[in-house]
């Protein structure tokens, strides 16, 4: 199981997903209509490292984070 957390304004509690790759995570999250816009606009980190492709293997206990558009300062 991997833990998916939604940062900043997404305002959704973390969920646990059974996933071997980020592609599996994508398939599960796409079923949640309320997440559609956030999936389009968010960056993704695995264990606090930003990733740029879905071909990332995941292990039990990994943390996947969604980072929506930012505006610091």
């Amino acid at each position, binding site marked *: 199981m991997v833990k998916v957390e939604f940062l900043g304004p997404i305002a959704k509690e973390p969920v646990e997903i059974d996933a071997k790759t980020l592609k599996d995570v994508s398939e599960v999250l796409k079923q949640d209509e309320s997440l559609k816009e956030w999936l389009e606009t968010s*960056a993704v980190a695995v264990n606090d490292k930003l990733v740029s492709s879905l071909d990332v293997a995941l292990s039990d206990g990994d943390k996947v984070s969604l980072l929506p558009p*930012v*505006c*610091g*300062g």
Partner: protein
Amino acid sequence: MLELYNGALDVAGILKRWYEEESKSNYGAFIPFIGTVREEDGIEGLSFDVYEPILKSWFETWQEKAKQKGAKLKMAHSVGDVPVHESSYISAVFSPKRRVALEMIEEFVEDFKASAPIWKYDLKNGKRVYAKERSTKIKGSGILYG
């Protein structure tokens, strides 16, 4: 070097401390950038969420880049509510030479705006409203949607 504070920053105190910390480091140029909450659109202030683990690694990558040019970066940011006319952000570069400092403060502040995992909300009528229109997608966003 990366400092997070609840609420508004003590700008004068932070600048004084940073200047004194590097007073014997032999840097010739010190350029801070201070961001202050503007009174506009009837907001009472801004509010910030910060995701510290990724902010920290983003900052450390920049610190390494600065080090290779003989420079050093410092940064302070607010978490939570900051009223109008108070400051929420200070970043600073110290460098032996002015050219490196002038170029680096600009690049650093622009990359900060585009990449630092910080989310901004307008405080309006006591509510916290995500500043969606002013926010920037982090590079590589949208892969989960593909």
